[in-house]
């Protein structure tokens, strides 16, 4: 439990500018601890007809004001000075944004597997689209490279290469290609360059490129062949991302002026929350965060505070569905449908949604399609993120995610389901975790805001994270191995309030629940059979101490990895309903 007293009722308004919705969230001290109080929501107004994000911000604040009954707006806008009684206004504002198109970035590095790999890692963790990459191994002719750079009209070029005191001539050669390419563009269209290569070359790069465009520099991201140092470059990228987007998104600059800290992109702020949560987890287990947005999906993982973030601007539940559909076969979506919906109807719905991203599923069939699509979007994002997970984590099964202690799930498609069992099943089907993992739902869409708020008031962030603003769906135990179909794979015994309960046999191929009320703790003894692995090693069991119950208690997912779905619709429907009933206690 975090201790610390809120400084004299320091209330905070957090704004999150999403690609479809803008949220205004209010935090304040209640009985000596910070709490999330309420949120208002409005459509994001970055595009036509207003081209001013502040329209949506003011509407969201007006709704928040109506819900809380606290005056937050006056004739000049947001009231940022609270009155003497602390009943009106707020002490501070923070803001995060994911609205706007991703930055078009060209990455340049010496070697594909070394500096270019690191540059791509850096750029992939931001709201960016890599439109071209260039390295010494590029097979295109120099003029083809130059034409490609100039015709792509990038928003930013990130240049790396050369270890500390390493290669220099080749880096300058690549920089010269850039210089030639940028000279072909009118001055107003020349992108800034971020140089994150050999620091000894900074003055030479400046001499070559600074007369042509703005050059920013950060510490070498690859100081040696086996060392990656992304930290300083990330700070520079974050700053550049804001600067470029502020030119494109009306109102962003004003919001930044009101904010206590520089506006951060939602993906980075979400990552900070995931990193914080990982610090209370014993290594080598980690923390996974998945934020399923309308245009972008963010996957963040942190092991002992070491954060990795991947942002996928082409994958989401609104405009981002286009990216998912481009790399998906329909059957990969329909396998998750428990309704018999014609393929044509599913396709029509999924192809219309990117054109009308703000629409909501209004019928059970539409909701089922969205949840099936959400599984596939997250599945693709997780698949693309596998290389970022550390090699020294625990992998009970190769080709899966490593053993995460907790999964934080954000994004309204997953978190605002009318029935939480649908959210839990979607997360289990999409992420397919292994080991023993607790699933936490960011039902109020706070994770990004708290990541930003932590920079202003860490106590606020910590106390809200510890509050019931997040929903613990339950702890899931996932054994993996090659059991006989239908056989018993685990024997488990719960010890509640010092009392041993009956041994329960957990069968292969389904979902089994042991009730454990939310917030209640119990110890669990697990004995894997048939050499099954729950993360402690094949066939190894033991005590899992102080398991805390969630909405669905303790859940045993013995469906195997990857989950195989029958091709027959009737069998599939029966299976999907059985899993759902297992969670709800239905027949």
């Amino acid at each position, binding site marked *: 439990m975090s201790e610390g007293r809120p400084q004299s009722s320091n209330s905070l308004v957090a704004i999150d500018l999403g690609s479809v919705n803008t949220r205004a969230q209010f935090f304040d001290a209640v009985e000596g601890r910070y709490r999330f109080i309420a949120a208002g929501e409005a*459509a994001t*107004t970055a*595009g036509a007809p207003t081209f001013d994000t502040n329209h949506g911000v003011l509407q969201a604040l007006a709704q928040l004001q109506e819900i809380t009954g606290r005056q937050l707006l006056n004739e000049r806008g947001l009231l940022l000075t609270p009155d003497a009684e602390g009943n009106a206004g707020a002490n501070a504002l923070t803001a995060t944004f994911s609205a706007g198109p991703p930055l078009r970035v060209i990455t340049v590095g010496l070697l594909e597997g070394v500096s270019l790999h690191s540059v791509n890692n850096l750029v992939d963790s931001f709201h960016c689209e890599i439109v071209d990459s260039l390295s010494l191994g590029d097979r295109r002719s120099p003029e083809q490279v130059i034409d490609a750079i100039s015709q792509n009209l990038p928003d930013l070029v990130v240049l790396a290469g050369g270890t500390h005191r390493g290669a220099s001539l080749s880096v300058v050669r690549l920089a010269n290609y850039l*210089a030639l390419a940028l000279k072909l563009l009118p001055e107003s269209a020349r992108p800034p360059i971020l140089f994150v290569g050999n620091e000894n070359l900074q003055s030479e790069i400046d001499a070559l490129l600074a007369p042509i465009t703005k050059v920013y520099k950060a510490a070498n991201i690859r100081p040696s062949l086996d060392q990656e140092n992304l930290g300083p470059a990330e700070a520079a990228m974050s700053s550049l991302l804001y600067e470029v987007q502020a030119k494109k998104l009306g109102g962003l600059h004003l919001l930044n002026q009101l904010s206590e800290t520089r506006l951060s992109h939602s993906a980075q702020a979400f990552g900070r929350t995931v990193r914080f949560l990982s610090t209370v987890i014993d290594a080598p287990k980690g923390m996974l965060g998945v934020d399923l947005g309308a245009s972008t999906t963010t996957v963040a993982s942190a092991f002992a505070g070491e954060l990795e973030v991947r942002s996928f601007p082409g994958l989401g539940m609104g405009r981002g569905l286009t990216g998912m559909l481009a790399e998906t076969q329909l059957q990969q979506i329909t396998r998750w449908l428990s309704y018999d919906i014609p393929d044509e109807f599913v396709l029509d719905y999924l*192809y219309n949604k990117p054109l009308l991203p703000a629409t909501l599923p209004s019928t059970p069939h*539409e909701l089922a399609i969205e949840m099936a699509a959400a599984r596939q979007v997250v599945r693709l994002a997780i698949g693309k993120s596998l290389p970022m997970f550390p090699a020294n984590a625990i992998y009970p099964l190769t080709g899966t995610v490593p053993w995460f202690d907790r999964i934080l799930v954000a994004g309204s498609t997953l978190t605002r389901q009318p029935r939480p069992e649908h959210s839990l099943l979607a997360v289990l089907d999409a992420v397919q975790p292994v080991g023993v993992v607790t699933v936490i739902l960011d039902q109020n869409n706070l994770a990004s805001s708290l990541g930003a708020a932590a920079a202003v008031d860490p106590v606020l962030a910590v106390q809200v994270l510890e509050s019931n603003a997040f929903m613990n769906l339950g702890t899931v135990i996932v054994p993996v191995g090659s059991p006989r179909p239908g056989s018993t794979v685990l024997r488990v015994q719960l010890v509640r309030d010092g009392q041993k309960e009956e041994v329960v046999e957990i069968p292969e191929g389904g979902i089994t629940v042991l009730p454990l009320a939310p917030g209640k703790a119990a110890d669990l003894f697990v004995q894997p059979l048939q050499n099954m692995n729950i993360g402690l090693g094949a066939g190894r069991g033991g005590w899992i101490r102080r398991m805390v119950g969630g909405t669905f208690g303790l859940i045993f997912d013995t469906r195997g990895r990857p989950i195989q779905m029958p091709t027959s619709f009737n069998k599939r429907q029966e299976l999907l309903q059985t899993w759902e009933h297992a969670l709800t206690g239905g027949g």
Partner: protein
Amino acid sequence: MLAPITYIQPLTTLRRTRQLPVEGLITVSLGDRLRGTDVIARTGLHKQHIMLDAARALGAPASRVSKLIQRVVGEEVEEGAILAGSRGLASRQLRAPAAGKIAAISEGQILLQISDASAQVQARVPGLVIDIDPGQSVTLECICAWVQCLWGNDLVGEGNLHMVADGPQHQLTADQIDMSLRGAILVAGHCSQRQALELAGQVPIRGLILGSLATRLLPVAEKMEYPIAVLEGFGKIPFNGDAFKLLSMHNGAATTLNAQANNPHSGERPEIIIPLTDAGHPPQPVEIQSFRIGQTVRVLSGKYKGQLGEIIELRGNVIYESQLRGPAAELTLAGGGRGRVPLANLELLG
């Protein structure tokens, strides 16, 4: 809540500012009257180049070679012209391998532009040039009937409107397309026949306006070499009555079909523009509105999809049939009956 709007305007003043992707050469003048397919500017984005390494050709270090380059950026050169070299009998020279223009010089390397093919920017909207920001943008004004669409294949075309559809439920089939339609912009209902799209391209027509398109034909429509715009979306959705009536009224009229891709960031949408003369100077469309009782709206998704209705009640937080919660509107549907629809699934018809 700000309401999304799809405009179906019998008479309006449309203003469009066409921003160039990069600074370029504006090729029109104030007061020019343009067609949608006219070129308004050229940019140098798609030029082809040859890179020549003067340092290597002359065997001189890069630091010294700049003194040996005899040309400057922007200079036109003939094939075989000397670009760099020293004087003297035994000197080495670098000659232009083709005619072109010196595009850039850096660190002993010369970039020779060998093609003058520049990217052209089309007006996309017909009308009078009322403002020019040199090198940056052109603003056009058009008095017209105007219908916005939902999807387009990014092409633009002009021709006379031809109603193939006999009603909002019409279905386009290949047997409805013949040589008499050559050069026309067709208005049809739903299309689920690949052959119909392909045959229309062979005629060729100048454009196709559809109420809706079968989703599986999307890749085919994207590849067609004539503009296609879809009003309602993918799947079998009837043509909305207001747009159908308006287009029927202008059967035979000269029309621009700007089937540009839907871009939420710039606000650009595919659109049908029917210029009207002697129509005075009508107001520009109202851009910002909230939902109110009495408004006519169109349902974008759900079981009433594509239907028009009138708002009779606005409700704050209701449970939809999907069990999700949110604000909704009670509608009297144009087709009869009442329905409750999430506000997020409605748009105004402007």
